């Protein structure tokens, strides 16, 4: 069953059929009354309906300024109406709400910077997703990733032996470059626990290879966990399944605690960073993460500035940099990213707007995870991003985030932009000197 | 768009303004003497002493032309021979905190409120200057 304008995927449609009006009303009211407080009330009551958030939203801009897709417009079509009708909303309304909250919002928080009052509209969209989750009408593909998280503690049904096997396979391959390279599993007391998202062992194992080479060359005392808890991704965070989301983050921190590491370094992923740095910890009652969590971008910066990694020859092609929401707006790493690019590439061109004001890749916030059924509409919704990319005239697009990476690949193909999408790690791996760092040399 | 609407609105206002400034008054109004003030914000208050007192049935000068000494009102003494500004400075002073304009406002308005008659709103006394004035 393919989605059309009036239907969504199987999981949503079958879910809607199961619902009774009584359950809809009860669930909506339960979430809006019991799971919110003054913060939510203030957001609803402070909004002056000025429409200034519109310019922030890439969905609005990509669809010829369609008011249905502006941030406050999305709130009007979901939250305001739920409040006005005291939860007595129809199934058609809910179907529209699923589309708005899951497919037409990246929860990128750009609109908070365009609202003069700083109203957090992403928070309200996540509340809608929470209601959708509780009504069991979450889109099929993203729900499947949550099911996987729930059963395996990783996002992609990776089995424990497959995980270990993949790491050993990458270690073996990398030994052709460095004969004594190891991917140390479960090494207690290591300085660093390196963690990745499940798509890496599943179909991008080369990234683990590259990371191992960088770690080895930099002479780091590092380890990777063999047991569940290795995956730092968290799709439950985006479906409003806060309980599973909290479980994932908790297992992750506990793994690091059991290994007694000093800090956690993670691969180039944005949403995973948001989970373990900002969101997952909160459900587990940690105001801030219990470990120092270092995004790859920050880690590369450290290695390069400390001279643990040296660049033989800078990357020569014309590159541009996409600021992933969750590490720029989400962690302020955008300037550091530019420094890393400056240290590794010789021809850099900015895309505008940038830094905190970047446009989301259009895939983030779980949108791409709703899967192939919605790829067509996602491409339409990403037009403004495509135009932004095209305007740079760059040959290579650096995107230090997995979600962005996949989304931008789709955009590049769909809009025939003729760009290569790369991780920062790809660039570093290509340009670094392949020798092991020894202090003082 | 918004600008067009604003222009229409401004034009409407200008028309209203032109109307109100363009109306010429026919009869001359008797107003208070404001020589004590260096400059005035509003047109002098419209006040015809005799008509006022007749309408208000006022015979006792001291009701308005009072005499205060050491913070108390002196009974049976009046001050119609000296200007108000002799005691009430344009600005409040140590000796007399009641400045001249405030004295007028307080005196007139409180009485009009008490008696339930006479003007008490700004523009009812400080009437706009007519064309001929």
């Amino acid at each position, binding site marked *: 069953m393919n989605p059309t304008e009036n239907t969504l995927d199987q999981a949503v449609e079958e879910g809607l059929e199961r619902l009774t009006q009584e359950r809809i009303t009860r669930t909506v009211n339960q979430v809006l009354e019991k799971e919110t407080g*003054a913060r939510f*009330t*203030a957001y609803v009551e402070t909004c002056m309906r000025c429409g200034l958030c519109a310019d922030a939203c890439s969905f609005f801009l990509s669809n010829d300024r369609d008011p249905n897709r*502006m941030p406050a417009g999305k709130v009007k079509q979901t939250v305001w109406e739920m409040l006005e009708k005291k939860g007595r909303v129809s199934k058609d309304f809910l179907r529209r709400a699923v589309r708005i909250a899951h497919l037409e919002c990246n929860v990128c928080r750009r609109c908070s910077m365009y609202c003069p009052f*700083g109203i957090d509209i992403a928070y309200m969209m996540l509340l809608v997703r929470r209601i959708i989750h509780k009504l069991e009408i979450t889109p099929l593909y993203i729900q499947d990733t949550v099911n996987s998280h729930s059963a395996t503690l990783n996002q992609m049904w990776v089995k424990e032996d497959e995980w270990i096997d993949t790491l050993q396979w990458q270690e073996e391959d990398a030994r052709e470059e460095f004969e004594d390279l190891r991917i140390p599993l479960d090494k207690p007391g290591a300085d660093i626990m390196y963690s990745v998202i499940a798509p890496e062992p599943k179909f991008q194992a080369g990234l683990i290879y590259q990371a191992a080479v960088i770690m080895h060359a930099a002479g780091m005392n590092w380890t990777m966990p063999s047991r569940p808890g290795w995956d730092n991704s968290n799709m439950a965070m985006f479906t409003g399944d806060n309980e599973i989301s909290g479980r994932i983050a908790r297992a992750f921190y506990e793994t690091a605690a059991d290994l007694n590491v000093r800090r956690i370094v993670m691969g180039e992923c944005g949403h995973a960073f948001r989970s373990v740095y900002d969101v997952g910890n909160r459900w587990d009652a940690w105001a801030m993460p219990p470990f120092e969590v270092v995004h790859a971008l920050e880690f590369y910066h450290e290695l390069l500035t400390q001279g643990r990694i040296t660049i033989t020859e800078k990357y020569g092609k014309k590159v541009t940099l996409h600021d992933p929401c969750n590490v720029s707006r989400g962690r302020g790493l955008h300037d550091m990213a530019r420094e890393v690019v400056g240290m590794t590439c010789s021809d850099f061109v900015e895309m505008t707007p940038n830094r905190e*004001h970047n446009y989301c890749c259009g895939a983030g916030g779980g949108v791409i995870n709703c899967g192939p059924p919605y790829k067509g509409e996602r491409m339409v919704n990403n037009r403004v991003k495509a135009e932004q990319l095209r305007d740079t005239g760059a040959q290579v697009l650096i995107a230090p985030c997995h979600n962005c990476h996949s989304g931008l690949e789709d955009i590049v193909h769909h809009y025939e932009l003729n760009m290569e999408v790369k991780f920062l790690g790809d660039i570093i791996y290509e340009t670094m000197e392949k020798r092991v760092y020894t202090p003082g040399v | 768009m918004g600008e067009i609407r604003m222009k229409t*609105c*401004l034009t409407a206002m200008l028309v209203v303004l032109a109307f109100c400034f363009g109306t010429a008054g026919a009869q001359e109004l008797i107003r208070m003497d404001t020589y004590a003030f260096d400059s005035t914000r509003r047109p002098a208050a419209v006040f015809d002493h005799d008509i006022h007192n007749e309408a208000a049935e006022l015979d006792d000068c001291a009701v308005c032309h009072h005499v205060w000494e050491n913070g108390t009102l002196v009974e049976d003494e009046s001050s119609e021979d000296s200007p108000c500004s002799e005691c009430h400075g344009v600005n409040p002073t140590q000796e007399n905190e009641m400045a001249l304009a405030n004295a007028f406002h307080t005196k007139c308005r409180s009485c009009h*409120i008490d008696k339930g008659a006479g003007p008490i709103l700004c523009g009812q006394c400080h009437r706009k200057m007519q064309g001929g004035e």
Partner: protein
Amino acid sequence: MNAFIDFIMGPMVWISFLIFLGGLGYKLYRIIHEVRTKEGYVFSYLTWYHSLRSIGAWLIPFYPRATRQQPFFYGASYIFHLALFVVPLFLSAHIVLVEEAFNVSWPALNDTFADLLTVVIIASLAFFTGRRLIQPEVKFLTTAQDFALLFIVLIPFLTGFLAYHQVFAYQWMMILHILSGEFMLIIIPFSRFSHMITAALTRAYTGSEFGNVRHARDW
């Protein structure tokens, strides 16, 4: 009639200010109380520094990027909000009344300048109304309530303007001016006008989340 006018210029002013300030105070208390009992996490992230940093950045005209993208709207909005406070508080006619009641006064605006600012306020309101009627994304969000709010602000300024120029029905214009001004004050805590305090709170929290947790700017 004098007794009625005296009432609306005297006790009713007290009542209005009491409801206005008391209402806002109570609202603020309720919000803080509810946050304390239900969303204590807010205080884990809220800092004075990041709150004031964000509020400050948004108070500087055309400092935030978003405001530079809408120069006409923000220009009108900045002047409108400023005039909304400055005109009533520093109008000579208002100060005279305060002086009469309490024998305290402060410097007043030049009357012609205040008059000009009033025209600016009225023009801004016309502009805001026009936006609501014409600009698609604003029209989409607009309900009758939004026009009502604009109207509630318009009346005291429009009647004040007409009364100052003594155009017609002076006494009734003044009565309408006083009553509508008091109505506006009274309605503030019970309407979205309360954004005059809640906006600072939402901005403070977002500013703190951005600055304190995410090490990023929100302007």
